[in-house]
């Protein structure tokens, strides 16, 4: 097995902007990302959903590129673009033919330096975001399950427990002044990383980055709210109504260890043992063997990308003739077995091979079809913003491959405890109407 040697270079401009370049000339395509270290977790109180609404505003125009210019210039250069808001970061990214690199840097620098939006833009995007929430959550069976259902049940700190997509009243209350304050506070170069991946030489890339971003003024270092959770001492449960779907569902979430601790590496393999597709213990037992469930999946969402309390979550849709308590009992039996007996040598070997293979897939992985190197970009960004160490992308795999079966059993015992978990029951109304 050859060690990973992805070429990665990292510099920091005088204004604090990290620049990370990973050259690869396989295709004449370059992926450019800008990550800001602010996500929906630490958005202002009373403004739930604001970090995401703000992400939309970043496409509404900047001083030299009026509304739609950014999108038009990327598309008409032969590229694609998007942005996304996560727990602890927000990203903006585009993949373009490499001859458009400078144009992309100009656009990203312009909106980092001088976002220029008005009330009309805000009204428009507030409407768009509400339709986004309706199409993904309010008008979908199991919409938002469990990612929006779990936080208020599992957590006590507002940062971790609020509605990340936003209550409509909070979205309505958001003002242009909020947009400007948020921009000035968090969208400063000293709270961001610029990433260039693919068809770019590192010297040329750094020169262009300097040329376009050096004049963006640094801001005061952002002050972040404390996301720490008070200690949990009991299992937490809550119910949510399912409006459209007919199957009862539940999600069980266990709070994760801190990133990059020995327990964290072991949890990743435990996650794989439990949730690794049809070979994973949960799917195999609940769907294939006991046949209580129709769907059973889950895991650690974005294991490299969190910077505060997070969970490993199992999501189960079970048959209506099986009670929730019986389904949970079957789930608990799976957890108990792995706690009591651990995992075998050959299972651990399989898990590691699969982890390695999945890691490579992540590095190359696109997003929505055509976004080469999205995964590599995401890892480099998180390792830079959270760890100050983009080179981790080449070494972190070793930590997972060194995990022992004793460690897997130990983290199962330590973390998969009732007082470390929360359970959401999503209960269909349709079932009772049908019976009536």
């Amino acid at each position, binding site marked *: *097995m050859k060690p990973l040697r992805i070429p990665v270079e990292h510099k920091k401009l005088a204004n604090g902007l990290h620049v990370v370049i990973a050259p690869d000339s*396989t*295709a*004449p*395509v370059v992926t450019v990302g800008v990550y800001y270290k602010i996500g929906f977790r630490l958005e202002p109180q009373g403004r739930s959903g604001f970090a995401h609404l703000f992400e939309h505003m970043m496409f509404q125009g900047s001083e*030299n590129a009026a509304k*739609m210019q950014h*999108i038009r210039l*990327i*598309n*008409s*250069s*032969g590229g*694609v673009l998007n942005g996304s808001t996560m727990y602890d970061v927000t990203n903006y990214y585009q993949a*373009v*033919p490499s*001859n*458009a690199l*400078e*144009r992309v840097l*100009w656009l990203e620098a312009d909106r980092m*330096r001088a976002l220029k939006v008005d009330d009309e833009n805000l*009204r428009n*995007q507030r*409407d*768009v*975001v509400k*339709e986004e929430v*309706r*199409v993904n959550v*309010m*008008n979908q*069976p199991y919409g938002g399950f469990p990612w929006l259902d779990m936080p208020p049940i599992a957590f006590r700190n507002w940062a971790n427990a609020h509605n990340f997509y936003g209550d409509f009243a909070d979205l309505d209350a958001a003002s242009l002044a909020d947009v400007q304050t948020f921009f000035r506070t968090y969208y400063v170069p000293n709270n961001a990383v610029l990433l260039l991946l693919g068809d770019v030489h590192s010297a040329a890339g750094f020169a262009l980055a300097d*040329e376009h971003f050096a004049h963006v003024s640094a801001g005061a270092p952002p002050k972040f709210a404390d996301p720490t959770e008070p200690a949990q001492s009991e299992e937490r449960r809550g119910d949510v109504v399912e*409006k*459209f779907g*007919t199957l009862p569902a539940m999600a069980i979430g266990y709070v994760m260890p801190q990133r990059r601790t020995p327990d964290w590496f072991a949890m990743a393999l435990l996650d794989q043992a439990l949730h690794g*597709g*049809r*070979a994973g213990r949960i799917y*195999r037992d609940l769907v*294939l063997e006991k*046949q209580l469930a*129709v769907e059973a999946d889950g895991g650690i969402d974005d294991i490299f990308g969190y910077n505060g309390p997070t969970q490993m979550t199992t999501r189960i*849709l079970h048959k209506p003739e099986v009670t929730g308590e019986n389904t949970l009992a079957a789930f608990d039996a799976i957890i108990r077995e792995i706690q009591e007996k651990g995992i075998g040598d*050959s299972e651990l*070997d*399989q*898990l590691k*091979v*699969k982890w*390695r*293979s999945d890691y*490579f*897939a992540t590095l*190359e992985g*696109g997003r929505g079809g*055509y976004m*080469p*190197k999205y995964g590599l970009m995401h890892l480099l960004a998180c390792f830079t913003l959270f760890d100050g160490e983009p080179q981790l992308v080449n070494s972190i795999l070793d930590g997972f491959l060194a995990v022992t079966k004793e460690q897997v059993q130990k983290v199962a015992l330590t973390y998969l405890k009732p007082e470390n978990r929360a359970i959401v029951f999503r209960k269909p109304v349709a079932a009772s109407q049908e019976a009536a």
Partner: protein
Amino acid sequence: MATQAPRTTSTVPDLAPEREVRWPQRTKTKLANGLQLILVESHTIPKFHGELFFRSGNAAAAGHGVALAEMTATMVRTGTARNTSREIEERLRGLGADLSVSAGQDTSGISFAGLSDHAGALLQLVSELAREASFPAPEFDRERRQKLEEVKLERTQPGFLAGERLRKVLFDQHPYALVSPTEEQVSAYNSEQLQSLYRDFYTPENAILLLVGDFEPSSMQEIVERVFGAWSGKKPVAQESPAPPRPLQRRVYLVHVPGAVQTQILCGCHAITRKHPDWIKLGLTNSLYGGAFNSRLVMNIREDKGYTYSPRSGVNPLRQYGYFSVSAAVRNEVVAASLTEIFYEIDKLRSLPVPEGELLDAQNYLSGVFSMGLATQSGLLSQISTLALNELPDDYLETYRQKVRALSSADVLSAARTYFDSANMQVVVVGDRSPIESQAALFGELKIYDAQGRLQS
């Protein structure tokens, strides 16, 4: 630049000279048993991606039942003459592999990806699934019960309901009208039927094997010959179905979902297949209309009016027929307003030539995005699959960009007039009938269905 002066120029930087797009060589061969093989090197990661396609899907099985090829595909990984379901899943994990077996209207297939280190063993397992699936009775009973729950669940999804209704409207008695079975049809599935389809469809004469990834073609060729060489089987007799009539006049189909807080709009009309000489022309026209973020429809009903989050249009190529469709999930109050804009933008493209600058932007978009397939193994595989399944010319990848760039605004106007069949476009709306019924009725004769597909009025 002579100085280090900070640069805050207000002008957009020009594009640098384009780097040449060089597509990798495709090694095409055919084994003695009829299996077509295409190998492409791509060394981006130490893995490879593959597809084993069979040129028969649900449409070819429609005489026997609905979505039968799909149910057959579901069974393939649940047991073989040599391995139980659990052994198969654990072997896959031990090889670092992902694998899925599925079927659509026109094909069935096994998709897989794994570490190059274990290529031989993974191909061996793919071969075992393609040749020796054993359809164990308990597995069949379970999968059929699973399928029953799945078909109930999909009837609660607005996107599914819209797509299903549009297909019925456009394809009538043709197999393409049937996207999913009823609960009764699932209950009537039997394992013998599936096994008979499996024997007919999963044969080397009916198959194409595509492999893209980190390997050396000649040694991969040897592995493939060794693993698949002794397989035998004939091409199944092709099933031709009579052409569906093109629906005439704009009609509206409302699928009533009580309590829906949004309306899913889906409009469509017959168009062309990917083999048609106008395909690229229509692709460019679609891209201008609603196929890209920077398209007229998205600008209008999202960025200007804020009616919707994700409006899109597309040309959907099935093997025998293609259709054009437009979709948007909009708030209930603006269903009529959104349909008005959808048709306004269609009619505008049919009436006025596209300005040169806008045309050039769209040409650049399509040719740029096309080349991105080069950058990843899965992207490249998806492009090679399109070529192989549609039997497109060998130089399709190399010549696509020139063909896009050679098109004129007269071409776009003619494609819009021919294929954006505004007057005969069929309109599906999925939502709560009370706030949207009167709005929908403005656009044509209205029929109302429930989520089970039963006509209400």
